[in-house]
């Protein structure tokens, strides 16, 4: 049988293919990924798109959690100060309710409590990054202002709105309580209690009842503080979860598209050896034919 007398096209094709393999291996080694263009593995490329999306979303959830966390921490510690102030007011009220004090002493106590009232207004007007934290969603409006004509001594200019922020694929967290609910809830109205206490001390009437009002308001705020405490622990838990998911996503990316380096390097070595062998063959077969032997 007659054989193909011209092996060069095949040999060159083999060289080209081996070089292609070497290029692919080298690219995989340099990028660490086996999927550098979609056609390398279309299904993996599609998964990588979703993986990158989820990874980026998780990073964003972490950032958003951080923002929300600081605001809530501020709110929480402010509430703690509010309760401290209320405790002071209560002590002063209890002192004032003691029948041994004369009107002038009581009036002095009332003045002290007016100071506390101002303090409370200032605390309730907490602002974080340019936003009033306790004015509902009317965050550009200071929620409370001292208003002597008002029965509670203050007016509330905020609203009852609350915000929730998505901090995970299936996790949305309410981030605020409006002042109307925290400080001015009917039956637990802190400012009403304080105003009643001031009025009581100034008139000598109903001091004990006013102290009860303030105590109720303080208890109510203490109860509602749990909301912020819970929110903070939920955020911490979510941050842990997100970190875990980020690690999982990185693992998935590696499983789907990571270059199998030992294998790739071994392939590369094989391809280089094969290239050398092919080139040697081309060099050696070049000169052998019958003409060389004819004299």
């Amino acid at each position, binding site marked *: 049988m007659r054989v193909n*007398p011209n092996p060069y096209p095949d040999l060159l094709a083999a060289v080209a293919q081996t070089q292609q393999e070497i290029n692919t291996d080298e690219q995989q080694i340099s990028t660490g990924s086996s999927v550098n*263009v*979609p056609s*390398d593995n279309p299904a993996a490329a*599609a998964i990588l798109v979703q993986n990158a999306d989820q990874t980026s979303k998780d990073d964003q959830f972490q950032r958003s959690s951080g*923002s929300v966390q600081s605001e809530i921490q501020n709110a929480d510690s402010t509430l703690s100060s509010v309760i401290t102030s209320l405790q002071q007011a209560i002590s002063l009220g209890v002192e004032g309710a003691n029948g041994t004090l004369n009107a002038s002493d009581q009036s002095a106590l009332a003045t002290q409590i007016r100071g506390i009232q101002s303090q409370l207004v200032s605390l309730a007007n907490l602002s974080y990054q340019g936003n009033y934290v306790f*004015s509902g969603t009317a965050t550009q409006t200071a929620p409370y202002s001292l208003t002597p004509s008002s029965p509670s001594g203050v007016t509330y200019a905020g609203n009852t*709105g609350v915000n929730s*922020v998505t901090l995970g694929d299936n996790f949305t967290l309410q981030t605020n309580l409006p002042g109307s609910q925290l400080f001015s809830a009917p039956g637990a109205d802190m400012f009403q209690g304080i105003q009643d206490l001031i009025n009581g001390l100034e008139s000598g009437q109903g001091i004990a009842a006013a102290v009860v009002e303030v105590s109720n308001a303080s208890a109510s705020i203490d109860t509602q503080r749990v909301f912020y405490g819970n929110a903070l622990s939920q955020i911490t838990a979510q941050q842990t979860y997100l970190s875990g998911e980020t690690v999982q996503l990185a693992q998935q990316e590696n499983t789907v598209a990571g270059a199998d380096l030992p294998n790739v390097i071994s392939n590369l070595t094989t391809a280089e050896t094969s290239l050398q062998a092919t080139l040697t063959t081309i060099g050696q077969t070049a000169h052998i034919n019958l003409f060389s032997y004819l004299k």
Partner: protein
Amino acid sequence: MSSLNASLATALSGLMADQGAMATTTNNVANVNTPGYSREEAVLVASDPVVLQPLTFGTGVTLQSVESIRDSILESQIQQQNQGQGQFSALTSALQQTQVNFTTSTNDIGTQITNFFDSINQLSTNPSDLSLRQAVLTAAGNLATGFNNTANNLTQQQQNLDLSVVQTVGQINQLSQQIAQLNGQISNLENVGESAGTFIDQRTQAIDQLSSLVDVSEIPSDNSITLTTGNGAPLVVGQQSFQLQTQPIASGLHDVYSQTGADITRQITSGQLGGTLQARDQEIPAIKTQLDTLASGLVTAVNTVQTGGFDLNGVAGTNLFNPPPVNGVGTAASLSVAITDPSLIAASSDGSVGSNGNTEAMYALGNQGIVAGQSPTNYYSSIVFNVGTDAANASAEQTASGLVLQQLNDQRSAISGVNLDEEAANMVQFQDAYAASAQVVTTINDMMNAVIQMSTLTG
């Protein structure tokens, strides 16, 4: 009874035949590296004998013809395979370029979609913050630019492919002309009984080239060949070639017309021209349509939420993106952000400045089936999958048809290629035969001399 003169003539025929055979070998050796050359073989036959009763004597050898050795069935298989190879090479190289747009990077559409929704999530933590609002506008602008760039790259690629269509048609026309001319030379020679091997080689090679450009059907006729495109538009009939033409159509791209003016663009399915047309008219438009679907689905949903909320001034929101055309066609290429003032983002659901209700609604779109029933990212990932699959398939087809073609070319080379060992052996053989015939002439000469001397003796 035979004569010495007759023997001399017989010896002479040997010398002549061996010279001819030697010329054939020489030509083979000279053309050892000529592309498309088929080796030639000297066909030697014994000359008709003479009958001198009661004996029959041979009269030597005749170099009857010089034949090119080729397998026409194999050649037509090669031409067939060339068409596939041309088609898939063109398609592969086009799709390799296309898929670069869909490779994950810092500015591919998928990343921009994610960044857009991420910016909304951040805004949700502080909806009245102007810098966060500006970040959303920037991300929206980047998203629009991502769509614009990808769509424009695809359009640019279509235009480049279109240029290639026009050039390929030019090459086809040139080859048709060449083949028609060769047809003429071949039939001229064959009509007078001459061998046209060299011209046939050239024609075979031209047809090989032609078949890698366009799907060609070959109809052999006497001493000639008729070539048509796959759908029957003539390219070459005998010594006449028919030129294909290109004309711009409404889209600015060129369609291909037969010489008689019929639009045959849709009928060209293989060869480089077929592959280029497939990329230009099917693959890339399909991807653009998917991009338009993605862009218009996303933009429409975002605008709907945006117009349902309130901006920083408590005013009802207006479109964030300029609305897509009614049928969606061209959305990706023309997508742009409609507002430049960050306070116009309708983050609020109730008109209060600090409400993030509408921001949350907009963020939720990222996980909703707003693009043909899928979330934007999932839809985009299916585009990536489609593009990758098409590119991988074309590349696999190209490799497969390349291997078959290589195999067929090996077979052709085994039959038609010049083997230097064989030629060397033939050369020795013809040289020996020539030397032998020459020796015979010398011997006859001696015998003649003997006869002449005998006459002298008697005379």
